[in-house]
């Protein structure tokens, strides 16, 4: 190779007047040092250090860029800093929540038998012994896990047909009729119902129908479906609406009846969106506490019957473990179990989200040859 071929790394007239590549890092370094110095004036803490650094970094980079590159580039840098800053502010709580749940939840989750045993027979004395002798914390979330899964499953079985059929009516038959408008309005109102009100509604309803004090998993499922139905209606409606009209017309032109067209063309085309909407609706109600507390009560033993007897669930389990530790003098084991249950709940919701994506990709209309 001849020496003349080596490209010049120096700046050409096209790249003149730009900040060097290392500029952000240099500014960041200076900002970190200055920020540390400033925060030490008022007493060091990591959070304040971050804030000072971010402000100094933004000011420094924008000022430097303004001096070298001109106002347009400086504004661009300012906007970038603001966008990235907002992003960090948005994810910080999320990361922090997951981190806290992991750190506090893993000891509970990894205790042998945590997922397989209930709280039946686990007394304050047992917890005291565990703390004093350093032995393993007894008791687990099995009964609550069973309860959560069963209650949400029943709620889903109630909500999906009702929600899907409602959205089919709204999109395919509604035609802006007064009834369709009224349904849309009430669905919107239902979306905003506080969850405790849904719980009270279900409790009162079963009070009237079955008699006072009826608290079972099924009542809780009804309460949850009151919360779920509007979400399912809304998401399915959106999904059905984006099915192109041309597909419906293609089916009609083949002499296919409307209900068959809906069943075999419209819904299959939208099914992936509908399925992920349903999964997200489940994820939305699976963490509800208040409505379950007033409808399913609270149990410490395994109850496999949704239609009879009080039932535990993960959120109410967490709630009672924190509020009324099994051993009031030694709340440590209860704390550990509560965090463990919280971690299980988060994992459950994440699994649901994964399943939603999986379903969406499985059912999605096939592309390619």
């Amino acid at each position, binding site marked *: 190779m001849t020496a003349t071929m080596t490209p010049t790394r120096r700046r050409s007239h096209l790249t003149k007047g730009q900040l060097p590549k290392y500029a952000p890092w240099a500014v960041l370094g200076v900002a970190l040092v200055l920020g540390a110095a400033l925060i030490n004036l008022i007493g060091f803490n990591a959070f304040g250090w971050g804030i000072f650094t971010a402000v100094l970094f933004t000011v420094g980079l924008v000022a430097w860029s303004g001096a070298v590159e001109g106002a347009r580039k400086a504004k661009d840098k300012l906007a970038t800093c603001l966008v990235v800053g907002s992003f960090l502010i948005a994810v910080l709580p999320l990361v922090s929540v997951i981190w806290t749940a992991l750190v506090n939840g893993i000891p509970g989750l990894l205790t042998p038998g945590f997922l397989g045993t209930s709280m039946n027979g686990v007394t304050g004395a047992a917890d005291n012994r565990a703390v004093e002798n350093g032995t393993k914390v007894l008791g687990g979330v099995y009964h609550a896990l069973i309860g959560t899964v069963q209650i949400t499953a029943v709620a889903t079985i109630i909500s999906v047909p009702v929600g899907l059929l409602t959205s089919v009516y709204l999109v395919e038959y509604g*035609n802006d009729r007064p009834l369709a408008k009224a349904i849309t309005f009430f669905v919107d109102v239902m979306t905003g119902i506080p969850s405790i009100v849904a719980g009270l509604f279900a409790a009162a309803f079963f009070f009237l129908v079955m008699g006072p004090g009826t608290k079972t998993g099924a009542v809780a499922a009804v309460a949850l479906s009151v919360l779920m139905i509007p979400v399912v209606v809304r998401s399915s409606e959106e999904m059905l609406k984006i099915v*192109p009209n*041309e*597909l*419906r*017309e*293609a*089916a*009609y*032109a*083949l*002499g*296919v*009846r409307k209900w*068959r*067209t809906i069943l*075999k*063309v419209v819904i*299959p*085309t939208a099914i992936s969106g509908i399925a992920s909407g349903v999964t997200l609706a489940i994820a939305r109600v699976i963490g509800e506490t208040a409505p379950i507390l007033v409808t399913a009560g609270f149990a410490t033993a395994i109850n496999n019957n949704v239609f009879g007897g009080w039932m535990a669930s993960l959120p109410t389990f967490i709630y009672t473990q924190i509020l009324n530790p099994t051993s009031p003098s030694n709340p440590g084991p209860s704390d550990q179990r509560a965090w463990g249950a919280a971690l299980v709940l988060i994992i459950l919701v994440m699994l649901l989200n994964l399943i939603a994506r999986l379903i969406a990709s499985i059912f999605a*209309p*096939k*592309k*390619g*040859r």
Partner: protein
Amino acid sequence: MSKRIDVKDLNVYYGNFLAVEGVNINIEAKSVTAFIGPSGCGKSTFLRTLNRMHEVIPGAYAKGEVLLDGADIYGAGVDPVTVRSNIGMVFQRPNPFPTMSIRDNVLAGVKLNNKRISKGEADALVEKSLQGANLWNEVKDRLDKPGSGLSGGQQQRLCIARAIAVEPAVLLMDEPCSALDPISTLAVEDLINELKDSYTVVIVTHNMQQAARVSDKTAFFNIAGTGKPGKLIEFAETSTIFNNPSQKATEDYVSGRFG
């Protein structure tokens, strides 16, 4: 198999808006009829009333008579579904069902209606329809692949195969070639020529050469101005319309001296 269509004094409305007024036309069995005319003059609207597809649009309705071999498709007690299985339609934009394979798309008219059909019969029907649509050779090795994976022209021919698989008496086509390249267009035009042997074909087109090439008779629609209803101006042999039209407007339109 193929049937004739006679239209008497047909008016088509979108709500209060009169879109097409006073159409009288007689379409022979086993012929190709082309509809031409400026944009917005109601060709698609009128075409849709021939198999009651306009009823899918909220507020649209038609007044008058459309006789399919003498029976009024708007008569009391006539089920639009029956009408549409007799009179098929191909749309401007290809619209294969995205959830179905090529094979299932062709069989859609049978399968969606839950008609029982044996595997052998189904295979024969798929081959016959795809052959009829000039598509068999291109897709015979990938019948189980999704229909949306075909090119635009292939998709349009797939839609034609789907339409002829239900063996309608009449086939309506609304600008079937407007999204196609010249070669696919030629394939579709050849196809129309073959279809004529067993079907009555009505085609809307903006392409005069196409109308001249494929049709036996041509109908010219026009509109007096925006907000006015579209009307059938002249209906005659294609050669008459293009060479020796009786109306001034027709002559202006076909010779390009329009407006």
